[in-house]
Each structure stands twice: as C-alpha cells, then as structure tokens.
C-alpha cells in the first residue's frame, strides 16, 4: 500500500450546537483520485475547508504527507502543496487570465518588495521563468489565447478551467476539487473528466474530488468515501459503493439531493 498523501483522523466540526462533521476518518493514497460524496449537507465542503485551513476543526487531526496541518492558515496549507477549486468559482475577476495564474506562482517565490522594486536581475530572471510556466499551463488547458482577457469575461466553462490552471500553478501535491462539474452541460462534463485524467498523468497528482455528478465520479475516481449527516457511511471502489445498501438508502431517502440540484 502506497503512503497516505492526506489523512483525516477522527475529525469533528461543530457549528454552534450543530455537528457538521462527526468523527470522520479517511486516508488518500498518493497518486489516487479520491471521491468524496454524499447528499447536500453531508459535510463534504466542511471537510474541504478544514483541510485547506479555512475552518479549524473542533477535534481530530489532519495530516498531509509528513506534516500535521491541523489549524494551519490557508496560505500555509497552500505553500505546503495543497490547492483547491471552489464550488462557486473564486477567480480574481478583474485581473487578466495570465495574472490569475501568476498570483499563484508568486506565492511560491521568496522575494521582498524591495528587491522587486529595485528590479534586481535575479528577480527578473525568476519572473521570466514564471511567465513561461504560466503560459505553458494556460496552453495545456486551452486558455493561452485568452491570457489578456479579464477573468470575469470568460464563459463559466473557461472560468472553471482557469481556476484549475491557477490551482495547478501552485504545483500542488494534492488537488481538491469542489464540484468542478456544477453548472457544466453533459459534453463539458465529459471533457472535464478527460481533462482530469490528463492532469493526473502529467502532474503526478493526488486528487480529492467532491462531486454530485455521479457519472463523473464513477468514471474517474479510484476510491470513494460516502458521507451522510456528517458521518462516514461507506468507503470503497466505485463499484462497492454503488452497491452499498447504506449508500442507496441515503440517496434514495433524499431524492431531491441525489440527482444534484
């Protein structure tokens, strides 16, 4: 068994009196695409926010590779190599497509404002290399021609791709995708699935995917963890999970959520 890339141990999150995540544990092996599914309100996004440092768990630990990242700030988590996309695209709306990616690249570079202001040679050299990588990424995701456009002017499908490009620019070891297919039509979703495959191949990534589109999840994931009401109710290959009676009950019991709203 490969080493765990991310492990969540006995995680609990309370919001006031409400327990959103209830003693959840799971581990993701390096190189896998891991699905996290469940009806609305199951606690998927809450777990995402704990992993990426937006929430501090009430109890439990989050480990990433050799680091215990419980309670880290988002920028610290990002620097360690975890990137994410959002259910509702969170781009820098009025920045250009290229600048959106550059912001991610810059987080990785260690130069002071002063060195930059002085335009020191090593800074310039670094800057050139960064721009090349950014263009490479945009090219890979088919956005190179649009690099001057403000992000907000792109159609949603492109915006989602740009968000992915930006996440990849962080050179993450772990990529968290929060409902990447939401708002996309069938053919776009299909293209996204193919894209995810290529991305994993090229960047040697581990991926944690939250998704309501069951077709996509079943197609691309290696392992799936199923949550309901903040609890883990099942885990296994897509096939195992599909046949799990608990899972069927959870989804059938909440028909409105099953098909994805």
């Amino acid at each position, binding site marked *: 068994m490969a080493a765990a890339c991310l492990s969540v141990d006995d995680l609990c999150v309370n919001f006031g009196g409400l327990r959103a995540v209830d003693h959840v544990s799971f581990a993701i092996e390096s190189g896998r695409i891991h699905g996290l599914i469940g009806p609305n309100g199951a606690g998927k996004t809450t777990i995402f926010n704990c992993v990426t440092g937006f929430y501090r768990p009430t109890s439990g630990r989050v480990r990433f590779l050799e680091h215990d990242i419980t309670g880290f700030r988002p*920028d610290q988590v990002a620097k360690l190599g975890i990137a994410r996309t959002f259910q509702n695209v969170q781009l820098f709306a009025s920045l250009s497509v290229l600048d959106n990616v550059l*912001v991610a690249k810059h987080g990785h570079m260690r130069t002071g404002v002063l060195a930059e202001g002085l335009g020191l040679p090593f800074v310039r050299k670094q800057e050139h290399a960064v721009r090349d990588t950014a263009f490479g990424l945009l090219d890979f995701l088919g956005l190179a021609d649009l690099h001057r456009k403000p992000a907000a002017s792109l159609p949603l499908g492109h915006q989602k791709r740009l968000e992915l490009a930006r996440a990849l620019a962080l050179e993450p070891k772990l990529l968290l995708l929060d409902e990447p297919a939401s708002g996309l039509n069938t053919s776009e979703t299909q293209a996204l699935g193919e894209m995810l495959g290529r991305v994993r191949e090229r960047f040697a990534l581990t991926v944690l995917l939250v998704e309501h589109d069951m077709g996509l999840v079943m197609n691309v994931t290696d392992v799936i963890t199923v949550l309901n009401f903040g609890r883990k109710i099942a885990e296994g290959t897509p096939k195992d999970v599909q046949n799990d009676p608990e899972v069927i009950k959870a989804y059938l019991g909440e028909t409105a959520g099953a098909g994805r709203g």
Partner: protein
Amino acid sequence: MTEILSSQVVSGLATGCVYALIALGFVLIFKATDVVNFAQGEFVMVSGFISYTLLIGLGIHYGLVLLATIVLSGVMGVVLERVVVRPIMDAPIFSIVIATIGASIVLRSSAGILYGYDVLPLPTIFSKDPIRVGFVQFTAMDAGVIGFSLVIMVALYLFFKLTRTGTAMRATAQSQTAARLMGVSVTRIFSLTWAISAAIGGVAGVLIAPIIYLDPNLGFIGVKAFAGAILGGFGSIPGAIVGGMLLGVIENLSGYFFNAGIKQVSTYILLILVLVIRPAGLFGAAPIRKV
C-alpha cells in the same frame, strides 16, 4: 480672464492632486480590507509633524527628510493596522470604522499635546514665486505638487500592474479566499496596504503642509479627500484620482465665480449632484458589494 482662469485651474489642480493622493489611500485600504479608514487624514497631519521635527528639530537635509517621512508614515500605517484594526478584524466592519475614528482623535490630540495647537510653517524646497508659461501663471510650488503627485501615481500604477506583490494585492482585493489559497499571506497584504496608504498620505502631508500650514487639525483635509473619493466612485482608483483633482478645480472656480460660502459647500453640492445622476460615482461600477 483666460489668464486668471487658467491659473485658477492650475492652483486648483495642485490642491486637487493632494486630495487625490489622500483619496487613493482611502480607496486602497477599502478595496483590500473593506474598511473605510477615517484616520487617513491623520497620516497627512502626522507626516507633516514628522518632517517638521526632522527639518527644524534635527536639521536634516530636505531630500532625506522626504524619504524618511514617507518611510516613517508607512511604518505608522503598519502599526495602526496591527494595534487598532487587526485585533478586531473579525468584528463588524462598522466597529472597525469607528475604531479608525478613535485612532484619528488619539493621533490629533497627541500631536496637540506634543506640538501645541498653534500653526507652524513647514519649509519646502519649492518656491512660491510666480512662473509664467504662455499666459498661464503659477508657482514652482504648484508645479512641484502636481509633478510629485503624478510621479507617485504612476509609480503606484506600475507597482500594481507589474510587480508580483502588486498583483497579489490586486488579487486580494478581488477575493481574499482565493488569494489565501494561492499562498498569498493576506495579513501581510493588509499590512502592506496600510503601509502604502499611509506612505501616500505622508507624501500628501509633505506637499500640502507648507502650503496650508501645519497644525494638529490638518487631518481634516481628509474629509474633502473622502468626498473626492466618493465623487470618483468609492473603490475605484482612477475614480479617486479624477475625483480628487476635479474637487480641487471645482472648489477654486466656484470661489472665483461665486463667494466663499458657495466655495465652501461646492464640494458637497457637486457630490450630491453626481450621486443623484450616477449613484456609484463617476468611475464606480456596480453598487459596492462585499466579496
């Protein structure tokens, strides 16, 4: 007539440039942190006293004083952010705004205690003797203020457009959440924003204090600049610049065509007119919304 009018416009532009610099400070902090910093005018006042102390008290060379004042103003901005704003960052925006008002009162009173409430003349390298170019008559002081302000504005533009820190700052203004995920330390960006805003305020102080004299109430010029920022569309950087400059010119011309009473309220009449016609201000986009 044209001669007098043109010199009115030039001297209005000079005052307007100073308004614009202060307005820029308001807008930068607002864009980055959603906070309206009512202590912005106090940066102008404190920097005036800093340069007064360095120039008169310690007798340091003017160029060095200018540099030191800008740097020290920036430091003051960081300190203010750390001490006043950051501890209550999770409080409602309104509470933070009130805290900045409190800070401005503390700064004003401290200046009064340290230096007294008397007006002081602040020396400048720019002469106030008249210069004539064609039919336009102005002073080296006017030209210096306009020139220096423009240099600062262009430098800021380049900084935001071309440097990675500038890009990160723009990104943070758009979405703090996403910026955090990109590894941008938002707290660092906040500090930097306050530093830059305060430093620009410092420049404004060094430019305006020799003209309208230095006293602890100098910070009230921030009220006018705030009006300028709203005029331009609060949250818009070009808006702050154009709004501030426009205000300076309009004030002068209304004083020329009418009387001191009209001059005093012209700012606000103009502001109300613009807000009625364009509620978001001259350059404002959609109504302000919190990201």
